[in-house]
């Protein structure tokens, strides 16, 4: 019958019209400034720098100014200047730090490539989207101080990912410590052996000879720093 398709369509619109008032699943509007939308954990917009300690954010930045993100950033929105001196990092090892680290968020396209290429887990994606400003240039160019946020903040926005990162960093740190210890032990053993050799041509102690090959190579680490593209 001519017109039946039309009536069928009208039935659909009528059903939807009524349904939008009665079905809670259809209340799609979020009263935005009063009600904030629930963001998924994976949500990302602009990068920030992770610092270990909230009380001293500049002193405990994970960033070592290796400039990989600056090189890889597709729209070239990151600018880094290396420091002249070195500061101890969280593990106590002296490291170069970024004297200037600036991100132009008016250029940034939120692609997350800086996060992926960072070998030190120093740069992560933020979830702050209310960043409207009244000027186009200065306010959108974020410097080191504005970018630095503590690790606890990172745990707050991306809990699963942050836990994985922490576990990996702890494993790396432990492996590095073990390696350093083993290397020190091997060195001490070698020195002792040399001293013993100089004193008397006695054979080496069996426990020392067993330990030394392991000390030179180091124990197998879950994810060695060198494989993850560390820059010396």
């Amino acid at each position, binding site marked *: 019958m*001519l*017109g*039946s*398709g*039309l009536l*069928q*369509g009208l*039935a*659909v*619109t009528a059903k*939807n019209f009524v349904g939008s008032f009665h079905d809670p699943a259809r209340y*799609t509007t979020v009263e935005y400034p009063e009600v904030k939308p629930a963001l*998924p*954990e*994976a*949500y*990302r917009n602009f990068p920030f720098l992770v610092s270990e300690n909230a009380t001293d954010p500049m002193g405990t930045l994970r960033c070592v100014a290796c400039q*990989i993100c600056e090189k*890889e*950033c*597709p729209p070239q929105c990151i600018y880094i200047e290396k420091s002249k001196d070195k500061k101890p990092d969280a593990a106590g090892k002296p490291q170069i730090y970024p004297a200037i680290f600036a991100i132009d968020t008016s250029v940034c*396209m*939120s*692609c*997350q*490539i800086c996060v*992926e*290429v960072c*070998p030190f887990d120093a740069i992560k*994606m933020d979830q702050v989207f209310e960043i409207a400003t009244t000027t186009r240039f200065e306010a959108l160019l974020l410097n080191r101080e504005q970018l630095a946020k503590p690790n606890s903040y990172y745990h707050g926005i991306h809990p699963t990912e942050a836990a994985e990162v922490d576990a990996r960093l702890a494993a790396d740190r432990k492996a590095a410590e073990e390696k350093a210890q083993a290397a020190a032990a091997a060195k001490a053993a070698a020195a002792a052996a040399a001293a013993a050799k100089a004193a008397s041509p006695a054979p080496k102690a069996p426990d020392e000879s067993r330990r030394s090959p392991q000390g030179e190579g180091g124990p197998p680490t879950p994810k060695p720093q060198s494989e993850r*593209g560390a820059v010396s």
Partner: protein
Amino acid sequence: MNPELLTPGGANVRAVHDAFHGDLLEVSMGPHHPSTHGVFRMIVTLDGERIVKLKPVFGYLHRNHEKLGETVSYLGSMPYTDRLDYLSAMTNNWAYAIAVEKLAGQPVPERAEYVRVILAELTRLLNHTCLAGFLMQDCGCSGTPLMYAFREREKILDLFESLSGSRMMCNYQRFGGCRVDPTPAWVDATRTLVGNYGAFLDEFEALLTGNEIIMARTQGVGVLSAALAINAGVTGPMLRATGVASDLRKSDAYGVYPRFQFRVPLGAHGDVYDRYMVRVLEMRESIRILEQALAGLPGGPIMDPKAKLRGFRPKAGEAYGRIEGPKGEIGFYLVSDGGPNPLRYRVRPPSFINLTVLEDMCLGQTVADAVIILGSVDIVLGEVDR
């Protein structure tokens, strides 16, 4: 023509008609017109209401995409491909990833192949749903179908956001796998969405497919012959609506598509209604593929453990990777000289090539038809202009 004829009181309707008779009128549609789906311009020459000539003008959204691809690393181009056809970022990513994987000889784990199929079919659902909504908007169904389409689109975008972190600019595929492993919760949410999508399509079709006004408006309008479509290199639903069975998922059998049972819907007339119908039927088939892919989703790694992220330098050579995107064959041609950037980076954008037959479809039609014919081509200017 005598200007006095147009002065008030002095005009004689008959005289004006005679003065203008046989004159052609040139109308510039766009670039700032909502019916042109972005910054696209058509210079239409009219004889009365009939189109006698149509000249497409584009390039307003040119972003130097291909040259940009040659100045950034292979990985750096991935987020730019999101911005080609910004409705289907996931399939753009996949096509580019396939091209680079071919170039570098990079294998992809099985789980990643399944996830790629799931995301590509979700993208197809999203794209075709939106297209149907936009097309109806162009026909004059102001609002209703588009709002229904966008309601469903939002659900798919939520899935993309919870997986990749961004609704539209997903930047998800990597060379040798995918960036993030989907959680079981995500897979369940996708299963629910796919389960409900058939009901939405039933509703959508009840609203549109049998509607007499839509049939009268779209049937026999903008007919494209199969011969012209093949000669012009038209691909995707546009080509299938003319009755040519051509689908890269079948003919190229890339990824894990050979494992799935699905049909390729074909049109018979090549008019606007057929193009709408082919897309609706393709969505039904996409749901079938999604159900099979979600049921068969294997475990294992999502990334090839040997895949390199930093310092990626494929050996010298060339590769062309293509997939069946929602709009047609989306392909990437890369030439490598062994360096970190491609030596040549070329995109084969489906909607740009489908747009080349626009004048042939519009000749002899009315101005109002030009709007729905353009709507049925399914263009995204990000891809046309690059």
